[in-house]
């Protein structure tokens, strides 16, 4: 019997199986940010175990509230900063170099096919785009990961999503994943891996695959996983060219992590995107989705483009294409937060930042900020935000505020019209 990608990774990283169905895995990357890590650090100090299992496998960033907005957030940043220095964690990203973790770490080449990755952040599933097993965990799992380099998981079952057809104009990875979550529900993949296959995924850039995998958790999934291929190799090539004689050699090596043709799946779900429309959430759960034709015309107060879901260069290009030469509707304020400094720089060089600013957008530094109602764009009670982020829980972007999740294209069209709008007429 063949294996899924997650099964192959589990087998290759198994430390032991202390109980049936419980697998302790060796970790290749432990990612840290300043919200969930400081309490782990404090606890390790309190236990007289202020150690790290391997400083080269730990990556840390201050990203959720940066620059710090008050004494508390400055203290969290300081705890992480001091700890990274104390333990010689070289891959630590502070102001000037910091960006949204799930955009920054892949951009630095830290995530490779076949890796096991944990982070005290639910959207860690993003990194499965590289053919890795990447799971969000809590602070205690993080603490043990930092100290011992291991984490325990139940053997996950895998749902195969076979995404076929041709993406229509104005429809993107974000629409595909919102459609999938709408189909299977917010706990449709709980304790399961969502493995994405099919011609649509094969044709996607790494950025789009990250968007797809990013929202696996919104269906309860442990990790999203895409199959490593030449697109993966091309993305990683600047970081791996000293490891492999050629791209073909890298591909041959990474292909060991591709699911076997005879792998057994818990379920296989066929998704045909040929008739898919721009898809948008309504209400307060990510599985509550409507097509643009059902929801167009809904007024919004703010448009937010950014986050680990859709704050990458590809996303900025799509939004800028629609915004070019146009203005924000007078009733709407627009916020752009490029997800990393490299994205910000590239967007400036390409003239995208000019387009956003000409349209009337405020451009902020890279940070998670507004997505979880921490800073840089928090909503007032009763306000509505059209957002390229990943979670529309009640009050997520500010107490009493409402969030409609959508693609960067739909967000840009919405910015122009001041109501949820169809991006296809601008493309």
């Amino acid at each position, binding site marked *: 019997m063949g294996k899924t990608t997650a099964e192959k990774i589990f087998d290759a990283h198994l430390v032991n199986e202390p*109980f049936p169905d419980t697998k302790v895995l060796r970790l290749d990357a432990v990612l840290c940010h300043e*919200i969930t890590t400081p309490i782990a650090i404090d606890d390790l100090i309190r236990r007289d175990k202020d150690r790290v299992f391997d400083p080269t496998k730990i990556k840390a960033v201050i990203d959720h509230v940066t620059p710090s907005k008050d004494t508390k*957030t400055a203290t969290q940043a300081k*705890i992480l900063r001091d700890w990274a220095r104390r333990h010689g964690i070289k891959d630590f990203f502070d102001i000037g170099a910091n960006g949204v973790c799930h955009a920054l770490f892949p951009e630095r080449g830290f995530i490779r096919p076949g890796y096991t990755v944990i982070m005290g952040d639910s959207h860690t599933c993003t990194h499965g785009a590289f053919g890795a097993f990447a799971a969000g965990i809590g602070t205690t799992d993080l603490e043990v990961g930092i100290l*011992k380099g291991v984490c325990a998981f139940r053997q996950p079952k895998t749902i195969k999503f076979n995404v076929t057809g041709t993406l229509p104009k104005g429809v993107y990875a974000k629409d595909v994943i919102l459609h999938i979550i709408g189909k299977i529900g917010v706990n449709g993949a709980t304790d399961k891996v969502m493995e994405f296959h099919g011609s649509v995924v094969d044709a996607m850039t790494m950025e789009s695959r990250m968007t797809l995998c990013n929202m696996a958790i919104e269906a309860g999934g442990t990790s999203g996983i895409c199959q490593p291929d030449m697109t993966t190799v091309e993305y990683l090539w600047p970081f791996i060219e000293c490891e492999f004689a050629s791209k073909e050699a890298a591909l041959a090596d990474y292909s060991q992590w591709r699911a076997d043709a005879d792998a057994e799946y818990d379920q296989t779900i066929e998704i045909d995107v040929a008739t898919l429309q721009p898809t948008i959430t309504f209400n307060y759960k990510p599985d509550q989705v409507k097509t643009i034709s059902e929801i167009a015309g809904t007024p919004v107060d703010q448009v937010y483009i950014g986050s680990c879901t859709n704050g990458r260069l590809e996303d900025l290009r799509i939004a800028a294409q629609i915004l070019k030469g146009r203005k924000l509707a007078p009733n709407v304020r627009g916020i752009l937060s490029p997800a990393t400094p490299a994205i910000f720089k590239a967007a400036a060089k390409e003239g995208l930042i000019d387009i956003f600013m000409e349209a009337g957008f405020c451009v902020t530094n890279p940070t998670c900020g507004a997505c979880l109602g921490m800073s840089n764009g928090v909503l007032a009670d009763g306000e509505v935000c059209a957002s390229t982020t990943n*979670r529309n829980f009640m009050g997520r972007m500010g107490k009493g505020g409402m969030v409609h999740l959508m693609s960067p294209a739909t967000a840009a069209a919405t910015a122009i019209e001041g109501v949820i709008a169809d991006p296809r007429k601008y493309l």
Partner: protein
Amino acid sequence: MKTFGGPVLFLDRSDINTDEIIPAKYLTEITKEDLKPYILEDLKLSGFDPKDDKTKNARVILSRANFGCGSSREHAPWVFEVNGITAVIAESFARIFRQNMFNCGMAAIELPKADLDLIFSHSGQSDAAISINIEAQTLTMSGGGNQKTFPFELSPFDKALILAGGWVDYADQKY
């Protein structure tokens, strides 16, 4: 080992998420104790008030499917713990929340819907209480002069974590 049980807080809705349990704006607190006043602050549910005595006195939460979905924040189990709630009983849990509970040495117990329906039918009784026996894997509901015991499933690993008082101590001994 911790004892599990006491007055029940009934939260009769599915998909109660971590933002409702503890809003993100409080994640800047450095100690668990500082989270205490903000328990379930953003949960809007008929008959529920995060500030009333029912919430204050509760030791067990009873809820429906997919409890604890959303963020990985362990602040969700912590805000329960510092308020004296060390067990959540639900039809199902989101993976990260469930693991966080066991990792803290607390109990996340799944019961079939029919059993939950029966326990929810006692939600009007002011003396509704549940006691939980981890070793025996049973829980006993009492209230209004009635008493009924339900068996529950618990994986050996999760049970070991509860008995060890959490994952850090357990992992430190074994790895």
